[in-house]
């Protein structure tokens, strides 16, 4: 019997375990939280913290080897732990729905999308024809233009954002009282993510559904949720109203987490990122005392042996810590790198520009069509400088990296010049010294390191080939490099699969530095890593730059990270540079309309509301770019600018609108400044 005060969802001392190889491993430890009707509760944590398990537990959907070992899950007051299967199915049909990551795979590839949405209605007894109509209405509700056409499509024909809207429509079709969302926007482009999140907020307002929102992204959580719970190693370490928790974090883990995120305003030249030493524990590790003790700078023996209870900080704000009062001022933890530089082997350089990219273009052939992926890109990079490349999917940022490195050869007319010397178009024709001068760290270390080779061999071989050392000298140098990057000697003979993500990336960085490079391209080097590990890697890169004078081309979709680490930034859209300038300029304005929209779509951790400049419409396909300025069909500043016709017919050039600041826009920068203030 639920009254207005009964929480929609309550987890009471919930304990969940997975049985792995015969042993029960604790995945959720004594979790207690409650979500009031219409409230949005955010559950935040890094990988392995158990947040997805919590989400699935709320749906009573655990994997075959999972079981609830204690506590209760109360939906509107009723315990669903021991409910019969058909009752649970009934709940799912009418009261609780779920949306999760990877919308494209969540939809059946062989059934039309519209039929899948209609299925929800049919389950509650509505006739087939009526359910199709209602399905179409549901698509309208999630702001899909032309729903009739979308209904007839198949999953693989939808873009990521569109697919997620369909999944949300399907979830809301049953008018649920609780909507569970597990990383719903991870993997979507920033602007698309912002749109989906806006949609969710609106729908929440309209329907009054309670939401359990799960994410690793603190900014998104802050933006979307009324209350927040921080999960670490399966335990809820802190919980409270969003503003309270973010303004006054009272658990060392929360404090550490907030500190290691590069927020707006921080820059590598003045600030160093905090790290949380160690790595997040594997799912199911056993702890005697506090789950966080092994990584906590405030931990004492008591913490390691006794389990702390929830302590009230103020009102509903609680933290599970013996030292919660000292948390916010806990000592900073910053690691140093002991890298042995070998920069003296470079000959004296000429001029200020290390790398010059001129008129690079690239056309790929896909299914018989010619697709212009990169269109006349020109950039330059100085010594000891970091150039950030920012752009969404389809912008061509990875292709530029490949062109620069010679993995892919540019079209006629494109030239890459390194330290005054023009480079051959293909890798095979470049001499060893040049090849060693430009290296790359890839996003996914699982694929970038040969899983059959030992760490020493991976780095040693690179030293052998790029520096011309003999095998034993190369191995010695490999040990040196690895230790300098804080990969302990005991791990040097290990294979990549035995290392954590952060360590693997350090190995990849060691390999990149094997040839004493002048430029290292970093292609989303931290995107696959947890936030706490990311900070350590970013610090490492900054240190390497300081000590060695190496330059970076840093590619990332994470604007916060790019802003922190870059000296200059180039913003890419559809294979073109549309803005280029110092980090300061690009992030503070005046902005190119696209940059403006992009920046406004990133939710801030400090909670400040940035005015959302939406980017309407869909990202055009590179095989069929719009005429005139490629942004014009979606440009938020085109209408009313006075330059509409020009925008639609002529492509603007990249011009210097302020010293060192370039923009590709017809609208004069003075007008933009005015519009944007």
């Amino acid at each position, binding site marked *: 019997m639920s009254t207005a005060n009964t929480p929609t969802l309550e987890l009471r001392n919930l304990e969940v375990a997975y049985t792995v190889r015969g042993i029960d491993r604790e995945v959720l430890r004594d979790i207690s939280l409650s979500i009031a009707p219409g409230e949005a509760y955010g559950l935040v944590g890094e990988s392995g913290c158990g947040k997805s398990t919590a989400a699935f537990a709320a749906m009573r959907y655990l994997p075959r080897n999972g079981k609830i070992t204690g506590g209760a899950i109360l939906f509107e007051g009723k315990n669903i732990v021991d409910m019969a299967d058909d009752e649970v199915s009934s709940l799912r049909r009418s009261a609780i729905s779920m949306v999760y990551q990877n919308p494209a795979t969540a939809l059946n590839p062989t059934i039309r999308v519209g039929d899948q949405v209609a299925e929800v209605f049919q389950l509650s007894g509505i006739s087939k024809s009526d359910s199709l109509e209602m399905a179409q209405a549901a698509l309208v509700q999630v702001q899909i233009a032309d729903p009739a056409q979308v209904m007839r499509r198949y999953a693989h024909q939808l873009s990521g954002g569109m697919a997620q809207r369909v999944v949300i429509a399907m979830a809301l079709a049953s008018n649920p009282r609780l909507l569970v969302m597990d990383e719903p926007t991870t993997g979507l482009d920033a602007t698309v993510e912002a749109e989906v999140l806006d949609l969710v907020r609106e729908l929440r307002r309209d329907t009054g559904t309670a939401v359990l929102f799960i994410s690793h992204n603190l900014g998104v959580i802050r933006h979307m949720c009324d209350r927040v719970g921080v999960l670490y190693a399966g335990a809820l370490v802190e919980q409270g109203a969003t503003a309270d928790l973010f303004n006054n974090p009272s658990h060392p883990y929360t404090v550490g987490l907030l500190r290691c995120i590069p927020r707006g305003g921080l820059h590598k030249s003045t600030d160093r990122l905090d790290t949380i030493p160690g790595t997040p524990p594997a799912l199911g590790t056993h702890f005697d005392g506090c789950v966080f003790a092994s990584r906590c700078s405030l931990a004492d023996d008591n913490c390691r042996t006794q389990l702390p209870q929830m302590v009230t900080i103020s009102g509903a704000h609680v933290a599970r810590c013996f030292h919660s009062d000292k948390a916010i001022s806990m000592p900073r933890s910053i690691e140093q790198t002991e890298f042995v530089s070998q920069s003296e082997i470079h000959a004296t350089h000429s001029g200020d520009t290390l790398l010059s990219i001129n008129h690079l273009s690239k056309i790929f052939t896909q299914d018989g069509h010619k697709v212009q992926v990169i269109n006349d890109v020109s950039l330059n990079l100085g010594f000891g400088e970091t150039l950030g490349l920012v752009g969404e999917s389809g912008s061509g940022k990875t292709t530029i990296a490949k062109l620069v*490195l010679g993995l892919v050869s540019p079209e006629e007319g494109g030239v890459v010049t390194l330290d005054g010397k023009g480079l051959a178009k293909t890798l095979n024709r470049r001499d060893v010294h040049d090849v060693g001068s430009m290296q*790359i760290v890839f996003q*996914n270390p699982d*694929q970038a390191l*040969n899983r*059959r080779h030992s760490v020493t061999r991976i780095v040693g071989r690179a030293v052998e080939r790029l520096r011309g050392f003999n095998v034993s000298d190369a191995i010695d140098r490999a040990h040196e490099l690895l230790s300098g990057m804080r990969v302990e000697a005991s791990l040097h003979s290990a294979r990549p699969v*035995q290392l954590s993500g952060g360590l693997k990336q350090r190995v990849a960085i060691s390999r990149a530095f094997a040839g004493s490079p002048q430029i290292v391209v970093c292609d989303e080097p931290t995107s696959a890593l947890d936030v706490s590990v990311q900070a350590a890697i970013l610090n490492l890169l900054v240190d390497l730059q300081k000590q060695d004078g190496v330059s970076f081309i840093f590619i990332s979709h994470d604007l916060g990270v790019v802003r922190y680490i870059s000296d200059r930034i180039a913003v890419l859209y559809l294979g073109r540079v549309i803005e280029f300038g110092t980090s300061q300029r690009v992030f503070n304005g005046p902005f190119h309309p696209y940059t403006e929209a992009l920046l406004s779509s990133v939710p801030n951790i400090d909670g400040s509301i940035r005015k959302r400049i939406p980017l309407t419409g869909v990202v055009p396909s590179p095989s069929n770019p719009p005429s005139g300025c490629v942004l014009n069909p979606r440009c938020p500043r085109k209408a009313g600018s006075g330059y509409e016709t020009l925008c639609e017919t002529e492509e603007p050039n990249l011009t210097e609108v302020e010293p060192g600041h370039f923009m590709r826009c017809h609208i004069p920068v003075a007008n933009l400044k005015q519009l944007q203030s």
Partner: protein
Amino acid sequence: MSNEERRTIRRERMQLVVRNKTFLVGCSILGFWLLLSIFGDLIAPRGASDQDFEFVSVGPSFKYWFGTDANGQDVLSRVILGTRLIVVMAFSATTLGTIVGTAIGLASGYFKGKFDMITMRLIEAISAIPVLIIALLAIAALEGRSPTLTVIVIGFVFTPNIGRTVRAAVLGEAELEYVAAARLRTERTPHILFREILPNVLPPIIVEFTVRLGYAIFAIATLSFLGAGVEYGSPNWGSQIAENWGNIYSNIWWPTAFPALAIASLAVSVNLISDSLLEVFEL
């Protein structure tokens, strides 16, 4: 996951293979036949062509455990002595096919382009001819009475399938960034193919080898049953059955049944091994 845990998982996997019942059963039976193929000469009580005219077509008895056939020859000895031929032939044919198939698969998967297109067309064409038929044809055309010829023909016929499997694996591997990383340290193609990519496609190749081995036994037995590819009078299991199976209507089952059992158990043992490997490697 701690490093300790990772190392334990690897050890556990190896133990899974060794302790897997299927694997053990398969290995024991295969081991038995391998021993027989090596020491057959010493174990067999009588020679392959020794004839005892007093005991023609006599059922299993104390003197002749598996009975005698229509020529008065000891079935037991002939089964034992026939082991070496089929085992050696099957292993050789499979090894040949695997080596050539791997080479083709590596080249096709890595270089792609025209070479790949032509190779795939050829592979498709060869696959459109049933294995047995193409073997029969080749052996007939080449005056086939020699086991070596049969080995080469079967090896050749296996190449397309193995090539296809290796190619698919290589296509997947070549996209991974460690290959690009190798190019970025000036590695040349042979190194990339053999020291970078090959070690990673080795597991599927090994499994494919064991699968093909089973089919090699299948093919060689059938070919010898059909009278192709083996010398007259050699005590191989297939022709033993071919000579004697007509007599099952007169209830003389033993000269047929025992070689048949031998073929079945040898083939199944190899299959159990490849099955258990498939399971462990989750292919």
